[in-house]
């Protein structure tokens, strides 16, 4: 199904670029295809609406239709607006000048927080840091064991106080431990939770106020559909996120959730997960995902010439 849409889209854009003259109806038709492509890619429908309206307005409003290459101009507007939405620049972790830098991972169940903890720790270690992973998930069966196994695999120490202590106390204990042992990055793995679970969201805020992390990252599964905005909005409200980690982009999902999450929180996507192994983490490049969402790798290269 996605294949078909992507082909259709390329068709439409092809027509648009091939044409000498483009009228309002052509633009409308092309934008209908763009709208469908975005919805099929799981971009939130409200974000889609706004996006399509913006493009239409610009395309019809500016001198586009009178220009020599109206088709290219419209496509260019689509690309510009999309890249803008994705948040332009690359953004990474901000390290504190008073170590340890504390990084807290949060998110719904099963999104990839524990895996991302190990991936980040491994990356920091490679960059010459001395990281500590902290088992603040006292809920999920074998969560601590999972982090410990990952710790062994990466040869990175794991701080745990079992599953009977409050995660806020565990976090505090971990930061003290890090200070004593000259560890400069502390990564808190927290339990998965629903954004509407008041008790568990309160618990997370307690962790936050106990150690005041320098980075609070929301881990989002790239396959998430329309609900991504509700989740991101709520986590951001409660925790004031500093960024997002998008996982499981090694699948065949378009990953439109990224766009929605970026749009509603305004927070940058910092890393993407591209596999289950601990080294499968990449720094996020907005432009690449932008073309993936529209499923238009070929069209993108077409635009480059516009």
């Amino acid at each position, binding site marked *: *199904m*996605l294949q078909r849409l992507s082909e259709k889209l390329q068709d439409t854009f092809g027509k648009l670029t091939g044409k000498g003259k483009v009228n309002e109806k052509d633009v409308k038709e092309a934008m209908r295809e763009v709208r*469908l492509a975005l*919805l*099929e*890619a*799981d971009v*939130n*429908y*409200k974000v889609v609406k706004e996006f399509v309206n913006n493009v239409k307005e610009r395309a019809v409003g500016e001198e586009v239709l009178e220009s020599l290459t109206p088709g290219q101009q419209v496509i260019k507007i689509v690309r510009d607006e999309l890249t803008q939405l994705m948040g332009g620049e690359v953004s990474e972790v901000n390290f504190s000048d008073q170590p340890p830098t504390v990084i807290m991972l949060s998110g*719904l*169940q*099963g*999104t*990839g927080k*524990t895996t991302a903890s190990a991936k980040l720790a491994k990356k920091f270690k490679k960059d010459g840091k001395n990281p500590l992973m902290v088992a603040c998930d006292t*809920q*999920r*069966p*074998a*969560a601590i*064991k*999972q*982090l*410990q*196994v*990952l710790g062994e*695999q990466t040869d990175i120490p794991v701080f745990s106080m079992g599953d009977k202590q409050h995660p806020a106390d565990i976090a505090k204990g971990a930061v003290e431990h890090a200070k004593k042992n000259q560890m400069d990055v502390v990564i808190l793995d927290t339990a998965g939770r*629903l*954004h*509407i*679970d008041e008790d568990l969201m309160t618990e997370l805020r307690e962790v936050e106020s106990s150690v005041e992390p320098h980075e609070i990252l929301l881990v989002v*599964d790239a*396959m*998430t*559909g*329309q*609900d*991504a*905005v*509700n*989740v991101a*909005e*709520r986590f951001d409200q409660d925790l004031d996120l500093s960024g997002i980690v998008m996982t*499981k982009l*090694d*699948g*065949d*999902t*378009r990953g*439109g*959730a990224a766009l929605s999450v970026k749009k509603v929180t305004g927070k940058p996507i910092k890393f993407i997960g591209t596999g*289950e192994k601990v080294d499968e983490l990449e720094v996020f490049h907005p432009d690449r995902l932008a073309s993936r969402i529209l499923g238009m790798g070929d069209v993108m290269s077409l635009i480059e010439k516009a």
Partner: protein
Amino acid sequence: MGIFSKIKDGLTKTRRGFVSQIEKLLTGKKIDEEFFEELEDILISADVGVDTTLKIVENLRQRIKEEKIKDSETVNQVLKDEMKDMLMQKDKSLTPQEGTPKVSLVVGVNGVGKTTSIGKLAYKHKQEGKKVVLAAGDTFRAAAIDQLQIWGDRVGVDVIKHQEGADPAAVVYDAIQAGRARNADHLICDTAGRLHNKKNLMEELKKVSRIIEREIGTPPHDVYMVLDATTGQNALSQAKLFSEVTPVSGIILTKLDGTAKGGIVLALANEMEIPIKYIGVGEGMEDLQDFDPDQFIDALFANSGENNEE
């Protein structure tokens, strides 16, 4: 909490949800373009997907025209019937032979809730007085075996396991023998989460399925694909590719205790004719329910926008 976790308090609230959504759509206006557009928005925001949404709306549009429907009550009913028709799919489970437990293979992409759902299913069968054995077929993910063992202990059922890194097909083979020897009614096999586009991992799954077939003489009696309700359009691709490897007999839709509606199962049922069997509504042992299409459709329309609209 979400709609489904409130179900114990009765369905009135969600029922009202559906009716009032449709009424809200219709009050003070005719069944016009705007109505259909808003309906489209509701369905799309529930992850039903463009194609299936358009199909539902088109069918409704036609019936309203043909049957000259004017009142919201009837529109409401017709719409629900359309959607229910889509969800009603033939049961595909196979029946085990004498002396063999019913073998269920649980598959799905990473982190959707396979292991947890197995724990819940085991609990459910045990409550029904059945004997259950679990197979720790995820030998890959860190502490996956420990996780299943904790569930086994919690529910009070045996877990057949090997070491981390062992061949999952060998674990499942042993579990079938153990299931027979122990006179189990159910054998439920956990598998590692895998993305459907990874050829080698899908080959491994095929091998597990083949071993089962060789041992019990038929494909697995049930192949459940576990689907996270927050999943968007990618679910279609998941269902297609998993079905190619081992024909999926039913969906377990998890995490419906959140705000996600899981509307993509309409598309799955409609396009792939896969029935939805169970829903997961929490992380506890008892948080598994039989799928009820009426309830599901009501929930799809209930408080739609509660978290969207400020």
